[in-house]
């Protein structure tokens, strides 16, 4: 607990004082701090507990790869679990809580897991918890589930908002360190549209904390000058706080911009985060390299951190990790830490270099480093350890589309694969370990046209790594995957047990499966596994890199399309009229349809029953605008429809409508509807509401792909027309009052007439004498904008006949009374024959589905076909979904005869009745079957009958 704030320097604003809370205790920090840096500067190293052993853990890194310092940030509905303290910008009033510990971070009861760690090795749970059998779900698993997981998520709705945005550019630069800045500036100066994105809160990458000298100035001011120039250019978009999390087909990148995560609450009208889809003509990966930990005993004690992280905290945030530091390395880069710490007046207790055979065996200390033991038997007191096991280019994005990184012996790291000119790696992300190479590769990549400008001058430092992975002499635990508590010994164990493939070892040991996805530990794991398996690292290879580079909130992916805006709402042209009439609406796909029109005190059943009775006694008006309407024209329109429908339309008389049935190519019924011929070369098709879009696509396919030679055009006019059914014995008298200059009678408008007319003194309209209700009925279509007005006029005209509006509930009651098939029967598995419409299939022409409809299984008499069904006890309510059995049979799938598809209360027949699909049903009218409704514990007898329950002679239709 000896971290402290260095007196001067850094990019923090020391004039500000920000107060924040961690585990209820108050601390202070400055503008520019991260939560991690402010805690370190406050002397707090213990920030979390590990997953399995609940070991005390401190911060390891200074960036997105952090596996240990995860907190629950904020409270209430804004609480976010597993938030990296290293990425949280400090703000006044910040509240953070440690996680995965009970009762407190200091004293975690489950740390006793460490005692059993000799049993809790990799994969132990696959070998036990099997006996007695019932204990797994009752005892073991609930305990494991409770103990597992990290942070606790809020179960309240998120009060913040999110946005989605799209961007296009000539060059996307991912990362704003030395190479990224060079690439961006070079491309920008040539006029290219450049996006420069960086996950950090400030642009500059490593120049924000490394001491460099470039072109005679220090690295930071070099960066700031370039950033200022880029900011002034109109063709450049700077995107700090934006993580490019994935690379997708078409050179599309996913990005997450943390717009307001650095404040307590987003300002009004601003989103918390913005999700980006960036389409880049070219992109460069300038994401830098990740420093690797070394694997040695106690390498997880709070106070052990990456050498680069230690100088990052000191140089950028003025936060010292300790007063006396040991440095453990296998390469030259850690020298920077030695030098920088000395500059800050911090004691260097020891430098242990594996290239000189120095090794730390064990770190002593529980909740903070106290001392280290070396392999040569020496012992040093210190309060922090900086480690550097080498550097791995951050290749993740370049491997998101399947390419594998390539092992490089010289830098002892995996290099990005060549994925083509659209996406190149530069700088240390491409394995360049010298600053001059980084700057140069950026300039080269940014030169989209013209000559390559000169590279700025700078000092280089040789990397000089000698690979070293694991101090095997360590007696205490040496961690590879910190968060998941995978140790170095787990990997040889996995190999020994047959899980030696890198992907199997990952799954068996959980190495690389934590929230950091192995950013720090995977290469160490691969090296140790390779050694155990007697393979080279190159042969062993990596596991699969997949999106997301860092985790992305659900909210960002969802953007504004949540809650009520999850899907668009489609309202019919008669929506306002329906509201005036007191409609209750129901969702039908995206549509809102009027369902029933209750009067005071009525429930849905009373309302719909009244609507049916009034319609059948007088007249009713129903909004049927949601039916699909497709206008089809051309000299071959009739021939075309003959191919689409199984029945014939080319012979339909002008001015007439016909019920049509279409099949899929596999012979099953696709859709039905009424199609009218308005002129020799002009038809109007209607489809079901549910299939309107699919039928349109089908028609387009049939014409464009199958029969392009036909002269036919088609367009959806569903949205252009408001359509109303006017049904009942008084429908003609009602309509007559609106129609211009036409006497409605069986001569001028016989059954199935279809004609263009005008109404209300010149308003365009179409009139169809068709009926779904079984009544003498019409459908009237008017241009959508006039829908409400015409509906009101009809209501007025029908007043003397006590006209009622009726909704889809009443519509459904009437269609079931009449045995008309709809969604419940047109379920995508029924044939025309099943629906009792087999005779509609023409034998004189080719049509979609004709051949497949002839297969033996499609014409089997045992197929389930549509029948009517009524309870034997006429007072009983029946429901959809009951299965049918022969009276003598026991319930079983083998004995299953069919099921009830649609039911309704029949106001006319005063009982519940329905339609069912029953094996060989047409031959079984009159049979009494058993209805099995186990879900509702209701079994009863029902009578099979003709599907037409009401007015079987169709007298009312022609009345």
């Amino acid at each position, binding site marked *: 607990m000896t971290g402290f704030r260095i007196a001067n320097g850094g990019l923090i604003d020391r004039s500000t004082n920000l107060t924040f809370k961690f585990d209820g205790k108050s601390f202070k920090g400055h503008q520019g701090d991260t939560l991690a840096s402010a805690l370190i500067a406050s002397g707090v190293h213990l920030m979390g507990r590990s997953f399995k052993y609940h070991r005390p853990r401190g911060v390891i890194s200074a960036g997105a790869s952090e596996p240990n310092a995860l907190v629950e940030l904020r409270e209430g509905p804004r609480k*976010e*679990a*597993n938030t990296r303290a290293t990425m949280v910008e400090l703000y006044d009033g910040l509240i953070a809580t440690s996680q995965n510990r009970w009762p407190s971070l200091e004293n975690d009861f489950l740390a006793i897991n460490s005692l059993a760690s000799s049993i809790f090795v990799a994969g132990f749970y*696959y070998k*036990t918890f*099997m*006996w007695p059998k019932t204990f797994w*779900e009752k005892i073991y*698993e609930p305990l494991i*589930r409770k103990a*597992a*997981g*990290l*942070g606790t*998520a*809020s*179960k309240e*709705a*998120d009060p913040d908002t999110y946005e989605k945005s799209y961007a296009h550019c000539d060059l996307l630069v991912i990362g704003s360190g030395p190479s990224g800045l060079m690439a961006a500036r070079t491309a920008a100066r040539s006029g290219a549209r450049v996006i420069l994105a960086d996950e950090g809160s400030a642009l500059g990458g490593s120049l924000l904390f490394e001491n460099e000298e470039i072109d005679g100035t220090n690295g930071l001011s070099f960066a700031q000058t370039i950033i200022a120039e880029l900011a002034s250019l109109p063709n450049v978009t700077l995107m700090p706080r934006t993580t490019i999390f994935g690379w*997708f087909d078409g050179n*599309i990148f996913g990005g997450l911009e943390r717009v307001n995560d650095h404040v307590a609450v987003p300002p009004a009208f601003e989103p918390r985060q913005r999700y980006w889809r960036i389409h880049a003509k070219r992109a460069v990966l300038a994401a830098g390299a990740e420093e690797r930990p070394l694997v040695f005993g106690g390498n997880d004690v709070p106070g052990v951190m990456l050498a680069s992280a230690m100088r990052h905290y000191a140089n950028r945030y003025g936060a010292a990790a300790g007063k006396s530091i040991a440095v453990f390395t296998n390469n030259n880069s850690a020298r920077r830490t030695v030098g920088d710490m000395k500059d800050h007046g911090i004691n260097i207790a020891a430098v242990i270099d594996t290239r000189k055979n120095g090794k730390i065996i064990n770190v002593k200390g529980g909740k903070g480093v106290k001392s280290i033991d070396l392999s040569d038997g020496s012992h040093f007191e210190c309060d922090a350890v900086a480690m550097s096991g080498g550097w791995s280019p951050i290749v993740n994005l370049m491997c998101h589309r399947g390419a594998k990184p390539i092992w490089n012996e010289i830098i002892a790291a995996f290099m990005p694969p060549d994925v083509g000119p659209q996406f190149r790696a530069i700088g240390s992300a491409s394995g360049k370990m010298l600053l001059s190479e980084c700057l140069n590769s950026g300039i080269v990549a940014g030169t989209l046209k013209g000559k390559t400008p000169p590279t700025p001058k700078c000092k280089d430092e040789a990397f000089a790594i000698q690979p070293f992975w694991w101090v095997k002499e360590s007696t205490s635990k040496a961690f590879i995957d910190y968060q998941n508590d995978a140790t170095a*010994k787990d990997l040889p*164990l996995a190999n*020994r*047990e*047959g899980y030696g493939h890198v992907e*199997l070892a990952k*799954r068996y040991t959980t190495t690389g499966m934590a929230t950091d996805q192995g950013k720090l530990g995977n290469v160490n794991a691969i090296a140790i596994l390779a050694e155990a398996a007697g393979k080279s690292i190159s042969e062993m290879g990596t596991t*699969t890199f*997949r*999106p997301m580079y860092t985790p992305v*909130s659900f909210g960002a*992916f*969802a*953007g504004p*399309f949540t*809650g009520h805006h999850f*899907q668009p*709402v489609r309202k019919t042209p008669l929506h306002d009229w329906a509201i005036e009439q007191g409609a209750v609406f*129901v*969702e039908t796909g995206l549509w809102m349809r009027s369902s029933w029109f209750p009067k005071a005190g009525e429930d849905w059943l009373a309302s719909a029953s009244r609507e049916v009775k009034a319609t059948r006694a007088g007249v009713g008006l129903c909004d049927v605008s949601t039916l699909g309407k497709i206008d089809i024209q051309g000299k071959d329109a009739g021939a075309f429809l003959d191919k689409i429908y199984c029945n014939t339309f080319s012979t339909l008389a002008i001015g007439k409508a016909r019920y049509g049935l279409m099949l*899929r190519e596999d012979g*099953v019924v696709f859709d039905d509807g009424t199609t009218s011929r308005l002129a020799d070369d002009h038809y109007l098709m209607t489809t079901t509401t549910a299939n309107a879009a699919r039928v349109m696509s089908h028609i387009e396919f049939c014409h464009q792909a199958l029969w392009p030679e036909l002269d036919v055009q088609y367009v959806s006019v569903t949205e252009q027309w408001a359509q109303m059914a006017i049904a009942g014995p008084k429908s003609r008298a009602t309509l007559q009052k609106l129609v211009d200059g036409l006497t409605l009678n069986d001569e001028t408008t016989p059954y199935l007439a279809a004609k263009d007319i005008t109404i209300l003194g010149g308003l365009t309209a179409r009139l169809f004498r068709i009926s779904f209700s079984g009544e003498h009925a019409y459908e009237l279509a008017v241009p959508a904008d006039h829908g409400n007005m015409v509906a009101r006029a009809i209501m007025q005209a029908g007043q003397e006949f006590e006209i009622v509006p009726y909704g889809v509930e009443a519509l459904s009651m009437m269609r079931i009374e009449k045995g008309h098939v709809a*969604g419940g029967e047109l*379920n995508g*598995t029924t044939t025309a024959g099943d629906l009792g419409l087999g005779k509609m299939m023409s034998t004189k022409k080719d049509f979609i589905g004709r051949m*497949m409809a002839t297969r033996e*299984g*499609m014409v089997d008499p045992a197929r389930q076909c549509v029948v009517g069904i009524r309870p034997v006890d006429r007072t009983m309510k029946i429901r959809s*979904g*009951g*299965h049918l059995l022969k009276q003598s049979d026991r*319930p079983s*799938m*083998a004995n299953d005869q069919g*099921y009830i598809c649609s039911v309704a209360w029949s106001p006319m027949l005063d009982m519940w009745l329905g339609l069912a699909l029953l094996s060989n049903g047409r031959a079984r009218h009159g049979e009494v079957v058993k209805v*099995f*409704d*186990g*879900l509702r514990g209701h079994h009863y007898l029902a009578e099979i009958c003709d599907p037409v329950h009401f007015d079987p002679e169709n007298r009312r239709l022609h009345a």
Partner: protein
Amino acid sequence: MKYSIFSLLRNSFSGHKNWQPAWRNPDPKPEYDIIIVGGGGHGLATAYYLAKEHGLKNIAVLEKSWLGSGNIGRNTTIIRSNYLLPGNNPFYELSMKLWEGLEQDFNFNAMVSQRGVLNLCHTDAQRDAFARRGNGMRIDGVDAELLDAHAVREMYPYFDFENPRFPIKGGLLQRRGGTVRHDAVAWGFARGADMRGVDVIQGCEVQGIDIENGKVVGVQTSRGAIKCKKLALCAAGHSSEVASMAGLKLPIESHVLQAFVSEGLKPFIDGVVTFGAGHFYVSQSDKGGLVFGGDLDGYNSYARRGNLPMVEHVVEAGVAMIPALSRIRTLRSWGGVMDMSMDGSPIIDKTSVHGLYLNAGWCYGGFKATPASGFCYAHLIAKDEPHEVATAYRLDRFRRGLVLDEKGQGATPNLH
């Protein structure tokens, strides 16, 4: 070595240095009685049951990559037997029963966890369809419950019940449904098969099928020619490729399905829940990650990865169903190659080539079927007769018009 707490303790004293491999790593022999192509869940289960139920020993499983590297290693771990059609449900119920005794059977803890599968419904028509489905389960003695909105709210009070757009009207619950630790299923079957003498051979890619006089006689592989009397294909998304080596064309297309996992969380959701008004389903693993998925990307693909539009589509539905998901983070996405059949149901059958058997077309329902698929395929291979619960999975059902189309979508694989 039998796995138990005692063997764990014993091995802990010797620093776990004495564990034996879970399976051998044999070189292929020149000839086998039966070769199974594909070392995924179904292939390994087939080998296991051939050895265990039929006493056959001279069997090899050939896996071109690592063991369990196919869809058994990249699914969303759900088990259920809530199917609709008579040809399907008895099969999936057999699978459920095998799951229920699997771990003791193969002495490997695959963490079979029956925490319930709940399908939400949002309209009367959906509820009717669930009633039909649920009664079809109940009629055969399979557990199913139809819940109203109130009962769903008792289970998951933080779902969006107030959404005026797609209100949750209830759901169909199968309490015996749940999840299984997917990788462990492959490992358990591999170990069980290996112990019974089966050669599980990794890194051995089948490159050709040798047929003489209409009869299978062997395979050409990346590790040489291997003779066999019977050849059983079990290659999931790559079935068409392998079958084409025998000149067969299948009623199958390969499509990519993405799935996702969140960061690890303390218990958030207990069972498996599917949204009925969009493409989203979710469960939580024992480790704490929310495992979720939705729909196919829609285009034919052999790439084990997808694209952003489907990610957005799935997550939008997730947040619509559970608004509290908004601040939870998606950790990782991946894709599996699905053998989408023309009617959405699988095939376990002989082929027109003598001695060549086919197990394919699992769409995205293959994981839950793993034990029964292996069990029934083993039965078919051993006896040359289909198992009684798998008689509908015949290859000629397309020609005969006896398709098993649960969704009623017809011959369009990406709609199943």
